[in-house]
C-alpha cells in the first residue's frame, strides 16, 4: 500500500466548524483534480460538538487507492492544522504523529512563542504560521443546526481561505490554481500563500516535502 498522507484539522465546535470542514474537503478536492485518490470526512468521535469544544476534521491523500475504509480517525497524522491556536495549549495535537510531520497554525504570534506550549515539539519536521484572522477574520457562526451547510458564503470563505493557501505552499501537495477553482475567497487564499511563515527543524524524511 502506498503512503497515505493523513491530514487532521483541529477546530472549535460550532464557531469555526464550517471553516475547518472547508479546509479538509477543499484541500482533498484540489488534490483529486491532480489525479490523486482522496478521502475527506467530518469528526465522528468528538460528536456532538458544542460551542468551543475541540473537534477534528480529516483528509487523506494518496497516489494509489486508499484502503483504510473503516478507520474514521487519523491515528498517525502527517499534517496537523490548527484553526484556533489556543487548542495547542489544552490538547496533545501531535499525538501519533510520525517523525518529521508538519504543524500549521493560524496565529499572528512568533513561532518561538508558540513552541513553548508544545512540550513534544521534537517530533516536528517543520512548523508554519499564517495570520488568517488578520487576513480574513470572518467566521461562519451558525446556530441553526445546519452547521454552515445552507449559508451563502460558499466553500472556502473566511479564515479557511488563507489557511488553505498556506497549506498549498508548505505541503506542495496541491497547486493554488486548482484551489482557486474551488474556493470563493481567492484573494485571501493568495495572501495566505504569500504571507505564510515557516520554520524547518531538520532535514525531513524522503517522503515529506515541507517547502516554503
Amino acid at each position, binding site marked *: 500500500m502506498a503512503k497515505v498522507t493523513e491530514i487532521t484539522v483541529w477546530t472549535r465546535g460550532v464557531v469555526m466548524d464550517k471553516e475547518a470542514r472547508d479546509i479538509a474537503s477543499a484541500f482533498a478536492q484540489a488534490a483529486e483534480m491532480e489525479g490523486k485518490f482522496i478521502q475527506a470526512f467530518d469528526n465522528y468521535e468528538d460528536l456532538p460538538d458544542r460551542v*468551543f469544544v*475541540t*473537534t477534528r476534521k480529516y483528509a487523506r491523500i494518496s497516489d494509489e487507492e486508499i484502503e483504510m475504509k473503516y478507520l474514521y480517525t487519523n491515528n498517525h497524522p502527517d499534517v496537523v492544522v490548527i484553526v484556533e491556536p489556543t487548542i495547542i495549549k*489544552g490538547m496533545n495535537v501531535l499525538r501519533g504523529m510520525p517523525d518529521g510531520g508538519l504543524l500549521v497554525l493560524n496565529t499572528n504570534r512568533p513561532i518561538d512563542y508558540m513552541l513553548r506550549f508544545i512540550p513534544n515539539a521534537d517530533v516536528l519536521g517543520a512548523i508554519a504560521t499564517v495570520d488568517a484572522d488578520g487576513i480574513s477574520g470572518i467566521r461562519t457562526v451558525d446556530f441553526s443546526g445546519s452547521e454552515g451547510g445552507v449559508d451563502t458564503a460558499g466553500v472556502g470563505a473566511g479564515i479557511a481561505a488563507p489557511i488553505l493557501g498556506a497549506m498549498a505552499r508548505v505541503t506542495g501537495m496541491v497547486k493554488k490554481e486548482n484551489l482557486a477553482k474551488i474556493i470563493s475567497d481567492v484573494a485571501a487564499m493568495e495572501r495566505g500563500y504569500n504571507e505564510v511563515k515557516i520554520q524547518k527543524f531538520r532535514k525531513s524524511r524522503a517522503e515529506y516535502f515541507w517547502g516554503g
Partner: protein
Amino acid sequence: MAIKVPKDREVPFGAITPAPVREQELFITSNWRAVRPVIDHEKCTLCFTCYIACPEPCWSYNEKEDQMEWSWKFCKGCQICIHECPADALTPVPELDFEDGVFRLEKPF
C-alpha cells in the same frame, strides 16, 4: 480517581461521578477556553453577579482574602461574567498570553 465498576456492569465515561464534592476530577473543561476573564480586585464591589451568572460555577467567594476567586480548571471562556459585571472589573485576556492555567488532555472526551 478510580471508581471500581464490575466488568459486566460497565457504563460510559462520566456516567458515575462521586458526589457531593467541590470539584469533579472528570470533565475538566479548561481547554475549551480561548479567552480568560481577569479580575481587577480594586474595581470589584463583591456584588456576586459573576457568581450568579456563571453556568459552571467558576466564581466563588474567598472569605480569608475577602475577594472573588476564579477556578481555572473548569472555566470554558464563555465570557458571560465579563458581559454581566456591573463594575467592569473583569477584562477578557487571550489565553495564549499566559503560560499555564490549562489542563492538557491527551485526546478529547
